[in-house]
């Protein structure tokens, strides 16, 4: 049995929301610089230059890369042999977001209720929280900031088994085409397939949390990721929608067993910012 004070979790979240909004991990910088080098479209290349320069300025000046500093999403992998003390887990995660957004001069973009009053909560809380209980004494947090330019262009539906792989290809291309410039390409396309409708959506989101360059362990799915990337990049949308061959930086798929009667499918787009990090406590 391991004991962890939730204050430690709170402070990890507090630091993480600032880091992901301000600083660029090296693998992401390498990926974007490589797109800049390879993009043939002059306007697309100019956009990539601005994207790369912006990351350096944000980091040097300690200011967020984008004014939309997102809704915070936190995935918790909690070891079942961990005993949390000092308060509630959800309260600590929420408090971490509140402190981090305040200290980091990050924009508060959350409204308390989606339909009627839409009043801003003024501290960017609450975050969206997903907790998984796992074996052992570990505790890992994946913290993400999701802007709504790309979230707004994402969708989920259930295909018939007959629609199959071709149906998935058709829907992914349709989603990216509909998003066009609005999702801030070069995007990362997260595809969740199988399970139930809400599981597919969660899988799509989880795929966006992968490290740059990691393919699906199943070679069939890894090959499909690359095929979808080619299909998406054939659209011509390009960086920022200005035209070009780099509409997406990557396509990732996660799957789960599903029912004999359907193929739940969710497509979750991420903008070029790719703001997420994983912390082990």
């Amino acid at each position, binding site marked *: 049995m391991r004991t962890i004070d939730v204050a430690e979790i709170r402070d990890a979240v507090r630091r993480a929301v600032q880091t992901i909004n301000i600083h660029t991990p090296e693998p992401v910088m390498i990926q974007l610089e490589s797109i800049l080098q390879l993009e*043939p*479209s*002059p*306007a*697309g290349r*100019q*956009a990539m230059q*601005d*994207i790369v*320069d*912006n990351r350096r*300025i*944000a980091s040097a*000046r*300690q*200011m*967020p*890369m*984008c*004014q*939309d*500093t997102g809704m915070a999403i936190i995935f918790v992998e909690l070891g079942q042999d961990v005993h949390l003390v000092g308060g509630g887990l959800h309260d600590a995660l929420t408090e971490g977001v509140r402190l981090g957004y305040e200290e980091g*001069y*990050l*924009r508060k973009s959350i409204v308390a209720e989606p339909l009627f009053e839409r009043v*801003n909560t003024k501290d960017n809380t609450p975050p969206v929280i997903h907790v998984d209980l796992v074996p052992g004494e570990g505790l890992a947090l994946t913290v993400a900031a999701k*802007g709504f*330019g790309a979230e*707004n262009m994402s969708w989920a539906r259930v295909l018939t088994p007959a629609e199959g792989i071709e149906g998935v290809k058709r829907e992914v291309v349709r989603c990216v085409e509909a998003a*066009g*410039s*609005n999702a*801030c390409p070069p995007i990362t396309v997260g595809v969740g397939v199988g399970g139930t409708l809400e599981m597919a959506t969660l899988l799509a989101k989880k795929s966006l949390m992968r490290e740059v360059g990691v393919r699906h362990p199943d070679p069939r799915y890894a090959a499909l990721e690359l095929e979808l990337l*080619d*299909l998406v990049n*054939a*659209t*011509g*949308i*390009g960086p*920022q*929608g*200005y*035209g*070009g*061959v780099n509409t997406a930086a990557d396509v990732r798929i996660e799957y789960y067993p599903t029912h004999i009667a359907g193929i739940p499918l969710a497509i979750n787009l991420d*903008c*070029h*910012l790719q703001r997420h990090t994983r912390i082990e406590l």
Partner: protein
Amino acid sequence: MTDAHRLTTPLTDDAVRALRAGDRVLLSGHVYTARDAAHKRMIAALDAGGVLPFDVRGQVIYYVGPSPTKPGDVIGSAGPTTAGRVDDYTVPLLARGLKGMIGKGTRSAAVRAGMVEYGAVYLVAVGGAAALIADRIKRVELIAYEDLGTEAIRRLEVEDFPLLVANDISGNDVYEQGKAAYKRTP
């Protein structure tokens, strides 16, 4: 790409007429910030027979909701937001002489027709390049709707704000042109 047009606000009809979709622009002078909530109020004011909080003739509106300003800085990060969300409010402003709009993403058919009819341009900045753009903002002044917070109308003094012409007065669209040039059969 051609060299950038160096423009200063207010925009003249001649300056606007010289711009073509795909041209680069470095804009200096003043731009007015407004996004969804401020547009809703401006149009409600016009519908009620009132006046706009600033004279839009020859001016440029920037669709932006900046992040909070750190002590000692002029402004927080200030990149463009999706323009399509204010499409429904835009044509009445064009009819009153608005000459330029700055945002990101495509515009509706009605807004594009309005730009042709009233002689205005839509300029785009790179979404997410908000720290780079903040560096080009030299002064900020609150104009109206302070209660809207990040969505209040502010006048920004900008220097060499890097932009691309997305829609010109002849109806050309950089998104359509760019996509057509690089679309391929997979």
